[in-house]
């Protein structure tokens, strides 16, 4: 059992508080019409942040679903910068710069899991040390891609860490309608790999599970499926009204187990956290976010950016379309 050090736990809490603070601000920005759809992070902080902290950012890849970016700060400030471009609908939001080993958000549920297996497999082929850690929700686990990827990872013995973030909901669909399996970790048996169920509100437990899975993978022992059990404390997204379907008593129970509150009170007891730390972290989080939004707003955008990066070189048809687009846009501004 590898327990994060006090210093690590403190860093983890900083990232967790940062993520929650920024998520709340983003929600408001969306309500003001300043950014696109937002998927709040509330409840996911311990799982995502602790997992990221168990990784070697230089070698290990993170393949997210869509709720994670604010909690992946450990991979560098570019994650936030690009995520704000993404939230504003700027194309550069998808370009997380080299050498950061984090893929952009995935909207097509489950499709990122095969990508993770391919990356892990590729690292083995290139004799690179490293693992591919992929996040996906309880809902996404119902996609064929999850199973096909888990099965292939098992056969290839690929260094993948599959983290099923079980927040009990997929939009309005509760886990018991998602699967009759007793737990998502049980699905590992079908791939011939270990399945581990962990309290995802316990940062240390998540850290330990990921650390162990990572070490197994690096030792050539193959993939692990980790189920992190949490609760989605917020709405699915800004487009969702969870009061239509989330039983209030369940939500209240979950709120009592809030991962941020839990780690905060733990570290307060250890004397590692206090009101000042909380305030400082929140202030910095907001500053960073606001600056990133500002920067994203003023990011340049070529008049024909729409047509860039489809192919390495324009086809004849794209070249024609580019000249039509440029012509139309020059008329516009004339």
């Amino acid at each position, binding site marked *: 059992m590898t327990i994060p050090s006090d210093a690590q736990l403190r860093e983890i809490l900083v990232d967790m508080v940062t993520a929650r603070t920024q998520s709340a601000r983003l929600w408001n920005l969306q309500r003001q019409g300043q950014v696109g759809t937002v998927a709040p992070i509330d409840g996911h902080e311990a799982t995502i942040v602790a997992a990221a902290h168990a990784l070697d950012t230089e070698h290990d890849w993170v393949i997210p679903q*869509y709720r994670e970016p604010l909690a992946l700060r450990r991979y560098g400030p570019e994650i936030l910068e690009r995520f704000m471009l993404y939230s504003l609908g700027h194309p550069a939001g998808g370009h997380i710069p080299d050498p950061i080993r984090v893929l952009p958000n995935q909207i097509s549920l489950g499709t990122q899991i095969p990508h993770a297996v391919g990356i892990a497999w590729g690292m083995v082929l290139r004799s690179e040390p490293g693992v591919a850690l992929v996040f996906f929700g309880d809902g996404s686990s*119902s996609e064929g891609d999850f199973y096909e990827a888990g099965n292939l990872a098992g056969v290839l013995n690929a260094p993948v860490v599959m983290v099923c973030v079980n927040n009990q909901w997929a939009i309005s669909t509760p886990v018991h309608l998602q699967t009759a399996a007793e737990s998502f970790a049980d699905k590992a048996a079908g791939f011939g790999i270990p399945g581990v169920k962990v309290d995802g509100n316990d940062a240390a437990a998540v850290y330990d599970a990921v650390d162990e899975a990572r070490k197994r993978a690096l030792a050539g022992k193959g993939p692990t499926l980790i189920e992190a059990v949490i609760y989605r404390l917020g709405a699915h997204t800004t487009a969702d009204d969870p009061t239509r379907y989330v039983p209030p008593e369940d939500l209240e129970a979950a709120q009592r187990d809030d991962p941020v509150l839990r780690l905060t009170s733990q570290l307060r007891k250890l004397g590692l956290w206090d009101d000042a730390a909380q305030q400082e972290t929140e202030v910095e989080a907001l500053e960073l976010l606001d600056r990133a939004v500002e920067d994203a707003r003023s990011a340049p955008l070529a008049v024909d950016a729409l*047509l860039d990066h489809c192919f390495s070189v324009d*086809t004849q048809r794209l070249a024609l379309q580019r000249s039509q*687009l440029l012509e139309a846009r020059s008329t516009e501004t004339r």
Partner: protein
Amino acid sequence: MADPFESDGVTELTMLQAINETLHAEMARDDRVVVLGEDVARNGGVFRATEGLYEKFGEHRVVDTPISEAVIAGATVGLAIAGLVPVAEIQFLGFSYQAMHQLAGQVARLRYRTQGRYEPSITIRAPFGGGVRTPELHSDSLEAQFANVAGLKVVMPATASDAKGLLASSIRDPDPVLFLEPLRGYRGIRGDVPDNDHLVPLGVARTAREGDDIVIITWSYQVELACRAADSLRSEGLSVRVLDLRSIVPLDIGAITEAVSHCGRAVVVQESCETGGFASEVIATINDGCFWSLEAPVARVSGYDVPYPVGMLEDLYVPDEARIIAAVRRTLESG
């Protein structure tokens, strides 16, 4: 044949309301109809298209499925074989890709491969289309890919009234129908909808605007834009017809031929990227049926040949009134 107890009244509804009402009516009318999909029951659908069905018809006939598009589509085959009339929702058309092997490989072929033993009375509803700043794969216009799948009907209403009439026809149709609902139309399109049972046959195009100089041929939300373009050009004295295809399979070849023969000039508008979009099929159909009437090449207004883009670039990608008007002018000036 008029039922004295029924009104011939109309009610103004959004397209979304029309769809929701039709689902209620069809489920009430035929107890073989079952609705399945992600979040369709307890939540009434992420756009509320299925609102109230679960409360009214119960958990057996209105079913929240796991997030598994392939088995949503695949189960409709089995349900149809068992004698039910499934109406499945794919939450966004882009995720029909996850079910392509069931939709194109199985649903579309059930009648053919069993030589008529089984009736695929299957309707697959899916929203799609641009202009509302959705994330990836929510907006893509994939209709041409499905039009190339023999055995599948592809229905794309443009008005609230047609949404009702075509959806009712689709559900009652013994062939599999992909029923595509434009996201921008859900709340953005409203109009009078007949209160009574209202059926619009599949495969009969609609003249949305009369006109003689040129015809704009299009479908789904782009009909709205084409009509606006026609109206604004009319004020300049141009007589622009708008033909709403309503369904691209079956295609109303007769109506296309008639309109183009009459006007001599045509513009085809689609939201899909240009290459391989259904506009090409319309142009090929015009070439087949009324080449000799053409006074100018048919213009195509499309998305560009890139994946459907992010929010900031959407308005450049999706055809708008200005691009339609420019194409009409260009075509009128040509030749």
